[in-house]
């Protein structure tokens, strides 16, 4: 790797946001190099300055952000001092960028073809037909089937993965020397994630394009990067070849980041062989049992009584209004014939890609979706109306930004469910609020703040507190950690486990992230296109999956984290 010549060198770069005479440094004196044809990863949590670093290289910093000092040399030219016109010529032709959110990063009113082609038109001179032919070729190169059709499509008509491929096609069509990919896979499903990363790697090998890959996800960085930089609070804390950096980290922060990666059964990984054998034997036994016509043993029957949630032949529909003239409602089935049950004190994981019906299922359980057929039996004492102290199942949502009312203080938000569901007096309510806020690891000080004054992790703690304050037995967690940084993720998962022990809670934990699922769940249910394709003990599912789809999911999750398994 060291033989490659340097393409980009960042020297002592400092960048700051000016805020009323005060200057907050967001990038603090960083230096690094990118060599020709290498993939370099920048990893760090949100606010670590990794995106700002990328934007200063391509010259797209927001107007409030100023370069304080340093140099960004590209091909021997200092990008910070060259003229606007010259920089514009470089942008797109020599340096291009792949953005995180492909939905908002494309113009919604122009076709994909027009937008990809535009890049080519700006930086080269061809005949009209040639432009189109080259664009279609570029779309085909990134693995989009039927590129002619894609050319005519609008961004909203493509899936997230397809859009991200189109974005890569757009960034690569002019054969730039450097592509900056800012969280290119964050918004995607695991299987799509690994495909997109594979595509970036392929393009890098085929065209010798250098890539700066920015991600908060160590696994993404590990999967394709030659070298990596770890950033924290605008500083580079550690850098080096990916392999060395992550197998033998020196810096405390890097160690912490690595430790926070959800690794399935990390503690037991040495014994994994034994577990595998054990499960294998158990499977054999069970197969024999089933052959013996499966006499229900008393223990199992007792278990059935402990079922807190029982779902039988559940079908959930989703109606769309007025597709046809005079609005004949068309009905789409989202969930097909699901049957499962959850025991008291258990954590059931539901995993699947977006669109598989996970969230629809959650909504059906808590009663937010009325168009259901089949049986949902919740046996937590609340629905029978006997014990008024217990509450109906509660839900914790993914997005702690969107699901807390921004105009109310935390104290009010936590008190509201008590007002609605209990007859407690003001004093009692406040006492409960004070108790629960400490329970989720915050202080009473936080009650006086607004949601916008809390961090993402704190907000998710509030969301958990709001769910638990009414004493539910069953809590549905819909992607509760998906929008959080890894270290915060680990904290929230720990909190959930502690609370479960303390209150004997039952969780239905929905996630697309298998690694998170394996960390917290006892049993896992794999959902694909609205059907349960596999349901097993977590460990069993991990070591011997049966269904092809589960295998594929595991493979993509592992592909990304293949390197961290041996830590």
């Amino acid at each position, binding site marked *: 790797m060291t033989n490659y010549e340097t393409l980009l060198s960042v020297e002592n770069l400092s960048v700051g946001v000016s805020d009323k005479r005060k200057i907050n440094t967001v990038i603090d004196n960083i230096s690094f190099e990118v060599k020709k044809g290498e993939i370099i990863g920048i990893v760090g949590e949100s606010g670590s300055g990794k995106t700002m670093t990328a934007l200063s290289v391509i010259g797209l910093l927001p107007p409030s952000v100023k370069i304080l000092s340093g140099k960004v040399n590209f091909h021997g030219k200092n990008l910070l001092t060259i003229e606007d016109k010259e920089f*514009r010529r470089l*942008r797109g032709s020599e340096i291009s960028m792949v*953005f995180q959110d492909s939905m*908002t990063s494309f*113009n*919604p009113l122009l076709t994909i073809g027009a937008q990809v082609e535009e890049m080519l038109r700006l*930086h080269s001179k061809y005949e009209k037909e040639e432009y189109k032919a080259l664009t279609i070729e570029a779309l085909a190169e990134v693995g989009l089937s039927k590129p002619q059709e894609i050319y005519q499509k*609008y961004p909203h008509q493509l899936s997230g993965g397809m859009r991200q491929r189109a974005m890569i096609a757009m960034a690569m069509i002019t054969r730039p020397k450097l592509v900056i990919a800012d969280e290119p896979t964050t918004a995607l499903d695991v299987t799509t994630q690994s495909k997109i990363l594979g595509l970036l790697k392929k393009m890098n090998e085929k065209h010798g394009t250098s890539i700066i890959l920015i991600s908060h996800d160590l696994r993404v960085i590990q999967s394709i990067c030659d070298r990596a930089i770890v950033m924290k609070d605008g500083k580079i804390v550690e850098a080096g070849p990916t392999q060395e950096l992550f197998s033998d980290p020196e810096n405390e922060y890097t160690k912490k980041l690595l430790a926070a990666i959800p690794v399935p059964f990390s503690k037991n990984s040495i014994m994994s062989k034994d577990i595998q054998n054990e499960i294998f034997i158990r499977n054999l036994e069970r197969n024999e049992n089933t052959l013996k016509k499966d006499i229900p043993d008393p223990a199992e029957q007792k278990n059935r009584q402990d079922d807190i949630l029982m779902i039988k032949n559940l079908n959930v529909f989703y109606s769309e209004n007025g597709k046809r003239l005079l609005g004949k409602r068309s009905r789409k089935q989202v969930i097909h014939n699901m049957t499962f049950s959850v025991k008291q004190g258990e954590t059931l994981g539901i995993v699947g890609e977006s669109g598989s019906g996970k969230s629809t299922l959650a909504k059906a359980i808590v009663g937010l979706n009325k168009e259901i057929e089949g049986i949902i039996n919740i046996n937590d004492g609340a629905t029978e109306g006997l014990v008024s102290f217990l509450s109906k199942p509660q839900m914790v949502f993914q997005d702690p930004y969107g699901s807390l009312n921004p105009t109310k203080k935390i104290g009010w938000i936590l008190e509201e469910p008590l007002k609605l569901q209990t007859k407690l007096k003001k004093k009692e309510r406040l006492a409960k609020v004070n108790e629960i806020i400490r329970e989720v690891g915050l202080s009473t000080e936080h009650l006086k703040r607004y949601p916008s004054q809390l961090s993402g992790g704190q907000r998710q703690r509030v969301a958990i507190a709001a769910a638990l304050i009414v004493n539910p037995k069953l809590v549905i967690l819909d992607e509760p950690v998906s929008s959080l940084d890894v270290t915060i993720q680990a904290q929230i998962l720990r909190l959930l486990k502690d609370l479960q022990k303390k209150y004997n809670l039952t969780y239905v934990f929905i996630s697309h992230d298998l690694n998170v699922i394996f960390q917290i769940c006892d049993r896992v249910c794999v959902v694909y296109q609205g059907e349960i394709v596999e349901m097993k003990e977590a460990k069993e599912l991990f070591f011997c999956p049966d269904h092809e789809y589960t295998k594929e999911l595991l493979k993509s999750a592992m592909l990304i984290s293949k390197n961290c398994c041996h830590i």
Partner: protein
Amino acid sequence: MKYTLKKLATLIVSLLITSVLTFTAFQIIPGDSALNALGMDATKEQLERYREEMGLNKSLPVRYINWLKGALKGDFGYSTQYQMQMKVSTLIKNRLTVTFWLAVMSFLLIVVISIPLGIFAAGKKNGIPDSFITLITQIFMSVPPFFLGMLITLIFGIILKWFTPGSYINPGENFGQFLRFMIFPAIAVAVPKIAMTVKFLRSSLLREMELDYVRTAKSKGMTKARILIRHILKNALIPVITFLAMMLADILAGAILVEQVFNLPGLGRLLVSSISNRDYAVVQAIILYIVSVVIIINFIVDLIYQWIDPRVKRD
């Protein structure tokens, strides 16, 4: 296509509903139209005969159907304020010509002036030209059109003598002269609306500039002007189109005060005089016209949306 048909169905249904509402509203208003038409001195027999003649003694649904049949043919009966000598349709048709040309001219002024001005202001965000435009729009937005009309009459009519105040020329007589005269009331109507549109377009453009796709366009190496025209403008125009359509409907409903100042025989003045003369046939017709204009313009806006925003179609 499906979308268009659906919108067309909505259009027809809403037109029908509004016609029912317009008709019934006038049945509830106190007052006897026979007495109204014939005067206080009419005898009982005269009143009866009149009711018979006009079909006023039939049931409500029958009268509605008859009225609607007439309305579809453009026949709203006769106007009482002109002693039943003038057909409502001719009356409205004459007045509508004035209102129509006033609307066309002022709307053209709004579009032609405010869109470039809005783009210019947004392009120079917070610069001196932008601040200047913002200040001017702020002032003109708050000036009432009739006062502006008086100022225009003073400056262009009396001082500069570009037109003779109050000397409205019938379009049938001399169409060129008519348009020349109409420019001045059109300006009076348009200026406050131009100011509003500039402000609205500017803020819509600035909001779009913050979005991710603009950053993508920048990363392609496009110039600022090109991004503004090719990427931002179309997106920013989406809310502005609704805004413009509402203004057009507003002008088409008649600009009473401006008509008064320039002594134009427009729809607004006809409406006012009909109301004060209890000329219900005319009022009813004008209300039906105004409501239809709003509904039809909304329909057209929906069609425009479908044309510029691919997300609307949703196949």
